[in-house]
């Protein structure tokens, strides 16, 4: 097993904070090297150092056994080290070929772009990525997110990449798209490309990884051949405790029906088609489905952000016909959206203001805000949900993903809902925070709330939900109870509509 | 949370529509034919001037339009707002409607030449009023008031009012406007001859009343001994006079230029001391008369191209006989 890229005794300090403590990491040539760890464990910092965008405080980097200075991303690229970030950096308004060559266009003469040459090279790259049928003139914005990810990989491949670092490339991909990506990674491995792969998704990376390296609190805590590990071992290394305590199952008695949805239909490119469901007090209901199945559209419609063409929504037995956000909120629904940055938080405001955003109008004394009441209310919620913050006045973006999620949840709870709608509540947050959110959901159910949550993580939805509804192409295609749900059944139901006939 | 009940919002829309209707209803285009094509032997006179916001140009427009109508012409009155591009488009309109003549107070001494040439090529004669262009042989006539002579009159009167001594400030017009320079030069041709007259501040107020007010206030702060303010036009004189009124130095002499009705009435009330009247109405009428003669003579004129009309000083002695930029009997 040949080492290609080694980091020796790397430390990195930011001000007084030690982000990496004396880490020695090895990536093996022609292998998929997986890096796992909770958010803030130091994975990304190490990758920034290996790709040249940050310099280590101490330690050295060896490439093919030779010490190298990677003082900029450009130097790293020149030495064959490419990185693909979690957020895509593509131009949706430009074609695949143009994107591949953006900033380094092929020239004809000194002034003109060699569009033909670019197209030819683009076709070669697409072929290497197993996308023979894709036209290089297609606009990137017209591609599904998975293929966009492949275009990003294509950009790295054009540079003759030897080491490819991928930072959570699958977080936005559907299961099928993940399969394609993994095939591409397997091909790259065949072509002697070394992959360093950062991921949160235990069930996924076990399929593709050859080696697994676990980070915790800025240190490298374990490094092992994948075949000698199991999920439990990895999780224990990551959180330093047993995975069985990861998800808390709700065990509250089920009460009255709180939310009753009948025949809800919403037109659109991603439609909701004749959906009926109920959520009762003390019940945690999960909705599983692929991206684009209409799950987000369903909860957004319930919350009044989209207009339904037909269908009825009743809360606590009372029909709510207006369908505005305010009316649904007053009726007792609250939504914690999927994309915290886009839909949940007001990034320019403080933690306190974000928590109180929905209810601030209630906290007035003769028309003016009552600062003491605001402070008290926000403080209570922070305590209740164990949100870790530097202060109520701190900008909300200073918090970690899990704590940001709790801020949005705190805001939703302050509206005094009876049913909480949670869209991907555990996405993009680390294992420890996931466990806390799951615990909170169970706790809320125990307090008599109805909880309806969306998840695309099989393990999460199976572990947390009392009932699982599966959505595909806007319809509910299957329903399972916690007792009879299996991974296979969920995947099958989410993939096709035909299951519906069998179940309904 | 009731910031704005929707009923009020409805009223807002209604208000806007009323406003829009008002805008449609009271346009001051005197054109009768709308877009209907003019006959080959056109009786259309197109009158293009700067914005009628300024009463001076308004008087010019009105006088030209009235004269043209009395001579049996249709009129199309347009305003180029000192934008040469807009003026050029308006020339295209005039050409496409086969105007018999264009009366123009132009939007730029150089920038207007091509447009006028284009009209000439289409056999439409242009008669310039108020402002000259930097080329001869393109327009049939350039009838302007003699700004230099007028500024001389104004300067003389100002010096007399000041008793030939003391500190004064000058408000300049828009620095890019030729007349601003000509008038300032004319003033100084006289004022600089008096060694005891001392200019302590000179600022442009861009022909604008509010700007003149604020700048004068600041100038008076810096130079408390100022005895007089001479302004490049009447709107600035009005602004300066408002500043003088607000200060406790009400005996400061203010002199303007243009002869606008507001300043004339101020002179009658012993406010502003003097202004120089540009015979705007007279010039506009002359241009229309010459255009009429030119058309009737089949494209000939017996007048020289450059014609300069003298300005008239307005002070309390003759203010009562001034009306619409014309002194009765002059």
């Amino acid at each position, binding site marked *: 097993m040949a080492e290609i890229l080694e980091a020796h005794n790397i430390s990195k300090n930011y001000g007084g904070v030690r982000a990496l403590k004396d880490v020695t990491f090895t990536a093996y040539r022609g292998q998929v090297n997986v890096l796992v760890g909770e958010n803030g464990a130091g994975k990304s910092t190490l990758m920034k150092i290996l790709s040249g965008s940050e310099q280590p405080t101490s330690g050295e980097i060896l490439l093919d056994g030779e010490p190298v200075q990677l003082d900029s991303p450009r130097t790293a690229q020149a030495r064959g080290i490419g990185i693909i970030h979690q957020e895509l950096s593509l131009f949706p308004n430009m074609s695949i070929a143009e994107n591949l060559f953006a900033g380094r266009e092929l020239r004809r003469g000194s002034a003109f772009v060699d569009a033909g040459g670019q197209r030819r090279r683009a076709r070669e790259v697409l072929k290497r990525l197993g996308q023979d049928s894709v036209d290089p003139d297609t606009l990137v914005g017209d591609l599904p997110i998975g293929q966009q990810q492949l275009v990003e990989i294509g950009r790295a491949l054009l540079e003759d990449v030897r080491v490819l670092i991928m930072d959570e490339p699958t977080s936005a991909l559907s299961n099928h798209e993940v399969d394609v990506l993994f095939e591409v990674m397997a091909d790259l491995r065949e072509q002697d490309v070394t992959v360093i792969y950062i991921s949160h998704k235990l069930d996924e990376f076990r399929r593709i990884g050859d080696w697994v390296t676990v980070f915790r609190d800025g240190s490298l805590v374990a490094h092992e051949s994948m075949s000698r590990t199991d999920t439990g071992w990895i999780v224990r290394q990551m959180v330093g405790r047993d995975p069985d305590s990861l998800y808390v199952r709700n065990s509250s008695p089920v009460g009255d029906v709180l939310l009753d949805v009948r025949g809800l239909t919403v037109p659109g490119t991603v439609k909701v088609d004749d959906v009926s469901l109920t959520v009762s007090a003390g019940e945690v209901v999960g909705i599983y489905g692929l991206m684009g199945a209409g799950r987000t559209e369903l909860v957004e419609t319930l919350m009044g952000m989209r207009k339904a063409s037909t269908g009825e929504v009743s809360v606590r037995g009372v029909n709510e016909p207006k369908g505005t956000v305010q009316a649904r909120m007053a009726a007792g629904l609250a939504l914690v959206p999927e994309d915290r940055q886009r839909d949940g938080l007001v990034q320019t405001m*403080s933690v306190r203001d974000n928590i109180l955003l929905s209810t601030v109008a209630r906290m007035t004394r003769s028309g003016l805000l009552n600062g003491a009441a605001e402070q008290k209310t926000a403080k209570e919620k922070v305590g209740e949900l164990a949100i870790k913050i530097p*202060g109520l006045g701190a900008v909300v973006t200073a918090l970690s993903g899990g704590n940001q999620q709790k801020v949005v949840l705190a805001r939703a709870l302050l509206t005094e809902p009876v049913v909480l709608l949670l869209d991907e509540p555990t996405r993009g947050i680390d294992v420890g925070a996931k466990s806390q959110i799951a615990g909170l959901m169970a706790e809320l159910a125990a307090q008599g709330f109805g909880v309806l949550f969306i998840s695309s993580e099989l393990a999460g939805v199976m572990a947390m939900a009392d009932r699982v509804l599966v959505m595909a192409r806007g319809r509910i295609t299957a329903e399972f109870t916690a007792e009879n749900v299996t991974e296979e059944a969920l995947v099958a139901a989410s993939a096709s509509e035909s299951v519906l006939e069998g179940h309904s | 949370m009731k910031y704005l009940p929707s009923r009020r919002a409805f009223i807002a829309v209604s208000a806007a529509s009323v406003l829009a209707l008002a805008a449609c209803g009271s346009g001051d285009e005197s054109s009768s034919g709308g877009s209907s094509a003019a006959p080959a032997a056109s009786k259309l006179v197109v009158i293009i001037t700067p914005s009628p916001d*300024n009463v001076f140009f308004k008087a010019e427009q009105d006088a030209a339009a009235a004269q043209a109508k009395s001579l049996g012409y249709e009129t199309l009155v347009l305003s180029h707002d000192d934008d040469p591009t807009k003026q050029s488009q308006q020339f295209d309109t005039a050409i496409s409607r086969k105007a018999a003549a264009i009366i123009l107070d132009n939007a730029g001494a150089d920038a207007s030449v091509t447009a006028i040439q284009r009209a000439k090529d289409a056999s439409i004669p242009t008669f310039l009023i108020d402002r000259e262009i930097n080329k001869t042989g393109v327009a049939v006539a350039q009838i302007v008031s003699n700004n230099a002579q007028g500024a001389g009159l104004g300067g003389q009167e100002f010096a007399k009012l000041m008793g030939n001594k003391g500190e004064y400030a000058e408000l300049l017009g828009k620095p890019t406007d030729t007349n601003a320079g000509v008038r300032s030069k004319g003033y100084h041709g006289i004022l600089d001859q008096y060694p005891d007259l001392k200019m302590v501040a000179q600022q442009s107020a861009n022909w604008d009343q509010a700007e003149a007010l604020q700048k004068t206030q600041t100038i008076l702060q810096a130079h408390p001994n100022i005895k007089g303010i001479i302004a490049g036009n009447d709107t600035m004189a009005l602004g300066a006079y408002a500043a003088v009124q607000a200060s406790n130095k009400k005996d400061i002499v203010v002199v303007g230029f243009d002869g606008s009705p507001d300043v004339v009435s101020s002179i009658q009330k012993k406010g502003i001391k003097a202004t120089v009247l540009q015979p705007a109405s007279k010039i506009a009428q002359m241009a229309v008369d010459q255009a009429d003669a030119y058309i009737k003579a089949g494209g000939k004129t017996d007048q020289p191209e450059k014609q300069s009309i003298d300005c008239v000083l307005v002070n309390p002695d003759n203010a009562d006989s001034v009306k619409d930029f014309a002194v009765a009997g002059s």
Partner: protein
Amino acid sequence: MTDTHVAAPAPTAAPQPEEPGSTALARAALLLLRGRTLVVLVVLIIIFSSISSEYLTQSNLILMTKHVAINAILAIGVTFVILTGGIDLSVGSIAGLSSMVAGGLLFKGLNFPGGTVFFSVAVVILIGIVVGALVGAVNGLLITRFRVAPFIATLGMLYVARGAAQLHSNGGTYPDLAGTEARGNTGFGFIGVDSILGIPVAVWIMVAVAAVAVVVTTKTPFGKHIFAVGGNERAAVLSGIRVNRVKIAVYVISGACAALAGLLLTSELGAAYPDTATTYELNAIAAAVLGGTALAGGRGTIIGTVMGAFVIGFLSDGLVLVGVSTFWQSVVKGAVIIFAVITEQAQQRLQSSLTRRTA
């Protein structure tokens, strides 16, 4: 756990543990940058007063503040709009329109079939402000109901309102707004010319408007909603905030402030002409930006905007006072605005680096 209470929702760095050396220096720099408008103002005063002994006199300070008042009131209104992520280009024209409406009512009254009615000055001022608010409401409706981009909607309104002002008098000026006892409409000069306790009424009005605006933006739920809409509109919608109402309300406020500024200017001038306050919108936006209001929305303070207006006003008047030519006045004003925005960027960078260090 430390806790800082911020009165103004200005960007606030998370409270940091004490750190020696470079961080302390960075923190000092940040403080200086945050107070940069004040720093610039003090520097201006020092420079001008060293050139002219007339600059730092009581009467000149009062006069300059009076000049500032009009732009400050316009800018406060515009700040409300910018905080929601919008822009209002029509305020100069609204000022002109309300000036003409008020001028017309004072000068020639309102014609009814039965005769001409004259209103008292208070009623005229009220009508002027209502006209501004209504035009603002139209802006708001165009932007919310008809989904016209704020830039376009208010650019259109810039022309419409200016044209309406010109139509009102057919382009002419209402030269005499003194009114007569017989008509019961004297005293329009009070707001623009008179003083109370040696301070011009216009300055008192600015102080009052600013005080109300500070309270509204920082101490009311509506204020929080303004910042939320500007910070993240989708999150605001999801939080149950009536985003459209907030938006309409800020354009109404902006229109009313513009109208008030127009009336002050008209009162001082004693005449109403249709070109009143032409291009003033640019000065107002410049004041807001100088004061640290982010054009993207969600960030800014009323006090900052007022300070920005002071910088622009004290600079312009100072240049006139020391006799600098018009051309240089333009150059210097523009340079100061650009400089302010550059320091704003520097502040943002420094701030986020300080936040990241402890996150």
